[in-house]
Structure formats: C-alpha cells, structure tokens
C-alpha cells in the first residue's frame, strides 16, 4: 500500500480549465486555503464551484471569485461577498442558489452512489420551479438531483498515509466530510499528519478509500 501524500506541484497539475470543483468549509473559516492556492497557481479558468457560500473577498472561495476564474457556482448564500454579487450582476458569474439542506444532500448523494433525494424544502418557492415534483405516500416532494465534482478539495484535523480522516469542532467539520466524498478526485489538506495506526478506527470519520491525495 502506498502513501497518498502528494507534493504541491503534483496537486497543481491536477487542475484544468472547465473543471467542476467542490470545496469544503463555510463562512470563510477553516477553508482548504493551501489547496485553493494550488488551484490559483494552476492557472485553471472557467471553473464551476460547488460550495456552501463564497466566503469574503480574499478568503476561501472568495480568492477564486477575486481572481475571476469561476464561471458558475452552485451555492446556498452569496450575501457575505460583495465581489460575488458584483459578478452576478455583471453577468460574468452564473449562480444557482440551493437551500443548504438540499445542497448538502445533493453532494452526499453524488458521493455515495445515489441519484438524488426527495425533500419538502423549497416547495412553494422559486426552488420548485426548476425541479421535478414527486408524490410518495400521498406527499409532495422535490426531487433534488445528485451533484458530482471532478475534484473535491477539503481540510481535516488529522490524516494518516492512506487518507483516514478526523475532524474537530463545528466549522472544523461543517461540509468537509461530505464534500470529501463527491469528487472523482478527492484531495485533502490536513492540520496534523499521523502514522498508520495512530488514528483509532472508531475515530475515523471519512475512511481512506474516499481520499486520493493528501497535502501535508
């Protein structure tokens, strides 16, 4: 078994124009900032981003927005970032706004082999307009289709060489464990790198099989 620890240069070489990249984290706190730096250094443009929000200018996803390398975003909230709003108004950024619970379930479905999820959230609102409505046991639900990304980038507290991951806290967990599952390529940056066996099996939240590359 080989270590998944990967050099920064090798990670940079994974990013291409037009990719869909899912990014873990919320409110611009505990973002995978070093991996976002890799995206910027790759020069990749015309990206589609899946993330809960677009942070603030200069922070997290906001750094990609500032650089003008994002064409399209599926997100739940853009109110914290005036640059995002300016790009939406100017027509250079296309945004699909999704309720947060629907967004994360779409990601979870994409990561765990499901086609989509049925939810009542968004019924009777503009969210319903673009969705299929399904009736189950006499109740109406929106069908929210799964989201899969080309690359998922996330951050974790601890990782071992095969990509078993642990998290800590609220913002320190947030969407990271779910986003980590939804990419054809899943890259994680860790705060602490552990030896194999150092993370007890019961503490592992994302098993290493979901992870392809680790930035230590």
């Amino acid at each position, binding site marked *: 078994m080989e270590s998944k620890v990967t050099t920064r240069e090798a990670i940079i070489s994974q990013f291409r124009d037009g990719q869909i990249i899912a990014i873990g984290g919320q409110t611009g706190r505990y973002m995978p900032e070093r991996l976002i730096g890799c995206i910027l250094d790759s020069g990749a443009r015309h990206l589609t981003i899946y993330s809960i929000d677009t942070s603030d200018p200069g922070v997290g996803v906001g750094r990609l927005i500032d650089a003008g390398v994002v064409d399209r975003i599926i997100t739940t909230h853009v109110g914290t970032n005036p640059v995002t709003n300016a790009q939406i108004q100017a027509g250079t950024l296309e945004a699909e706004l999704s309720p947060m619970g629907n967004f994360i379930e779409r990601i979870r479905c994409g990561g765990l082999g499901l086609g989509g999820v049925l939810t009542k959230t968004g019924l009777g609102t503009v969210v319903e307009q673009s969705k299929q409505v399904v009736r189950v046991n006499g109740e109406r639900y929106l069908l929210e289709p799964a989201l899969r990304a080309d690359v998922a980038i996330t951050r974790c507290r601890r990782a071992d060489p095969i990509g078993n991951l642990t998290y800590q806290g*609220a913002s320190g967990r947030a969407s990271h464990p779910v986003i980590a599952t939804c990419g054809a390529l899943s890259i994680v940056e860790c705060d602490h790198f552990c030896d194999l066996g150092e993370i007890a099996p019961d503490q592992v939240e994302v098993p290493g099989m979901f992870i392809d590359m680790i930035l230590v």
Partner: protein
Amino acid sequence: MDHRHLIAKRAAAYFKSGDVVNLGIGIPSLCGNYAEPGVLFQAENGYIGVGPIAEGLMVNERMVNAGGIPFVPVPGASAFDVAMSFGVIRSGRMAATVLGALQVSEGGDLANWASPGRAFGMGGAMDLCNGARKVIVAMEHCTREGAPKIVNECSLPYTGRACVNHIVTELCVIDVTENGLLLRELAPGHTVEEVQAKTEPVLLIADDLKEMAF
C-alpha cells in the same frame, strides 16, 4: 436596552429548558443572551450546544458558528457534519427557530432571502422554516423607509409558505392563526391604532391583549 435587544429578549421567552433552537443572523442571534438555562443552541455547520462568544485563548477557527462568531461549547454539546445538521432540522427535532424577515404575510408566508436586484441566498432558512416545530420571526416592525413588513401578500421571493407562528417586533407580538393575524401583546407606550397603521393586513385583537413583558 435598545429595541433590537428587547425584541430578542421577548422572542427568547418562547424557549424552554431542553429545547434545541436555531437562531438566524441579526436580531435573532441576540436571543442566546436571554434564554433560560438548559436551552441548547444549534449551529447549522454542525453543532448542538453553542455557548458564549469565545475570547482570547479560547478562540479557534474550528469552533465558529454559522454566522462566523467563535464560541465556547456548553457541557453536553455534540458535533456533526452539515448533512446530519440539516437532518436534525428537517426531521422536526428542532423546537424552534428565530429568523429575521423582509416580509411576513397574513397567511404566515416568509420572505427573507432576496431583495429587489439582490438575491443573497437562502442559506439554511428554507430548511429551518419548514422543519422547525415553531417559527418565530424577530424583526423591526417596518422597513427603514417606514413601509410595513407585515403585508397582505409577500412581493419578495418566498422562503417558505404558511410557516410562521409568531411575529415579535419592537411594537408588538402577533400570532399567525387560521383566522388571520392576532395581536397578542402591545409594547409599553404604543397603541393598537399605531400598530394597525404600520401593518398592512387588518389585525384581530386578542380578548386578553397584554402589555409586552421584556
């Protein structure tokens, strides 16, 4: 006490010990200062048991709530990911949520995620207003321009339909009922006529109309 805190204090009186409650940003976020002991606060990013604002050495970026405020956990707190967090919200386990509003309609519809020319996003509000057992709107009674925010029909995009239970403002407490909006409490120094003049739908007046207790 400024009127934003007065609104928050009255809204917090709806919580009881053992409740798990979610607070929106703005005035709702102030409710945590006034809840009775034993109420547990949720953060959408995946936490139940959000305690006081963290300071000094207690600040770390892994312990920040969904509004970006660093916090200290209370005993009995639990951490989980966003998928579990919204499962908690949708499945009816959340006793109450307090949300801000741009508009609330006579039928209890809520609009709070997009204003003309600016759709800032619904975040977790659509899940909360459908999933929480009690939806409390805590807001200033009128817009900055003095227009009513309690309206016959929302003109702004809906967050949820027929979902609001209680409206708390600096002027009054209103319940959304099957028969219409019922004025339950009036803030000291204000009159029914004044509240009605600042509210678009015709209000029903409770037989036991009370003074708002802060």
